[in-house]
Structure formats: structure tokens, C-alpha cells
């Protein structure tokens, strides 16, 4: 079996269910509703205050940019961590299987 060929065949796009677009448009009224604003949680306010303080100290980046940069860095670190643990776990299981069959 040629796996590449089979994947191309099996994963060919499938049609969205009938009436899909109509159902989305029917929900547009909800999508238009203004988001309710809630007063930020105290922890959020403390983080924003820290970001503003940092902005004054750095003098260049906006608070939003700092928070956004941290989020990007954090997400990247998370992905790298999971990759590392997946690799390590897979190697450990090779050893486990070898021991089990010994």
C-alpha cells in the first residue's frame, strides 16, 4: 500500500453538511450582539498594572505588546515542552517494551 496515495485519497475534502451556510447566517444576530463588558478580575488588573509599570520603565513597548509577547513566548515554550516530553516518553516506552519482552 502506498500510504501517501491513500492519505491523499482518504483525506480529500468532504462537503459541509447541507444548509451549513444558512445556519451560520442565522446565528449572525448573536454574533452582532455587543460583548458584555465585565469589570476585569483583580488578578487581571494586577497584571495590567504590572505591564503598565514595565511600559513606563522600558519606554518603548505598549502594555499590549508586552502582554502579547509574553503570551507568544509562553505558548511557544508550552509547545516545545510537550514535544520534548512526547519524545522522552516514546523512548521510555521503547525501553519498557523491551523489558516486557525480555
Amino acid at each position, binding site marked *: 500500500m502506498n500510504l501517501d496515495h491513500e492519505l491523499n485519497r482518504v483525506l480529500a475534502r468532504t462537503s459541509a453538511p447541507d444548509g451549513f451556510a444558512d445556519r451560520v447566517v442565522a446565528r449572525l444576530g448573536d454574533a452582532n450582539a455587543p460583548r458584555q463588558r465585565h469589570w476585569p478580575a483583580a488578578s487581571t488588573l494586577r497584571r495590567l498594572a504590572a505591564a503598565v509599570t514595565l511600559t513606563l520603565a522600558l519606554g518603548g513597548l505598549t502594555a499590549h505588546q508586552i502582554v502579547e509577547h509574553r503570551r507568544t513566548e509562553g505558548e511557544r515554550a508550552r509547545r516545545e*515542552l*510537550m514535544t520534548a516530553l*512526547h519524545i522522552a*516518553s*516514546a*523512548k*521510555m516506552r521503547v525501553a*519498557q517494551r523491551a523489558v516486557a519482552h525480555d
Partner: protein
Amino acid sequence: MTRFLISLMLSIIASIAIPASAQGTRINLDLPDMAAKASETVDVTLDGAMLRLAGKFLSSTDADERAAKEMINGLKGIYVRSYEFEHEGEYDKAQAERIRTQLGPSWKKIVKVSSKTKEDVDIYVDTQGDAVTGLLIISAEPKEFTVVNIVGPVDIEKLAGLEGQFGIPHISRDLKEAHKDKQGKKEDHHE
């Protein structure tokens, strides 16, 4: 007998109370000759600060990420170098010695898997007294060489069980409870 001794050793190591302050040694995993020849490289360098940052972004509803969050608690670093090659025989397995020669007397080899055709895996743990303070995995396949160094009190059994068996996703705790109720009996733990 060998299997029993290895299992016993793993169980003893896993059950030892691990002091949170236990320090470990970071191993230099860089192999420039291998990197130059590799067609693909995975390079992960996460020191303590980056691990703490990553931990803040781990999901508490995803089973694997929940387990990962528990695992990295107290760790000082996780380092991975994985090199993949187009053809067999493109890298020199002897380069692994550059890593092994860094291991001091506190390091102990706990598993050795040898295969002529598939994958050789050596697993070492660093110890201080009775505590595990580090882990080193060296894996050599015909077209891939991988080293993993974890610094800190690593739970080996948890690490091996992180992805569940054979790549099947963990069943979330909520689903497990629902399944248990439906079955009316205790579900086996297959992780």
C-alpha cells in the same frame, strides 16, 4: 531474572521520596558534526525559567498537559536534541561517547536496549544519595539519533506513561467516571 532486576530497580527509584531542592547536572548535548549532516533537527532548550513559563500555559483540562504540569514541578531543565538523516549509516554512533564521557560517578545506567535492526536505547539516572536528580536518554536508530536530558527530580514511571499506551489518547477523568458509571464496575487503569 534480568527483567525482574530492571523492574525492581525502576520501582525502587520511582518510589524514593525526592527532595524538591535536589540539584542535578546538565549534560552538554550539542553534537555539531551530527547537526551538520542531519536533514532535520529538533532542538529543545528549556531552563527553569522557561519551564515555569510553559507551565503557566499548560491546559488543566487536557490529560497530557495536566500530567506534564505535574511532571515539570521542581525540574531545573529539559533539553532535547534529535537528529534525523536521509539514509542509514550517515551518522557515527560513536559520537554518543561525547555525551557518555560527561557522566560522573553519580550517574547510573538503569536500562540498556540493544537491537541490530531497530533502536538502541540507554537510560541513565543521576542520583544524589537516594534521590533521582536527573535523567539521560540516548537513543540510536538507523536514521535518527536522539538525546534527552532532564535535570531535576524526574518521575520516570510518570514520564513513560505520559502518552498512554500505543498512542491512544488518555481518556479524560470526566469520561472515565461516566464510563465507570455506565459499566457499573471499576475501570481498569491501562495507562
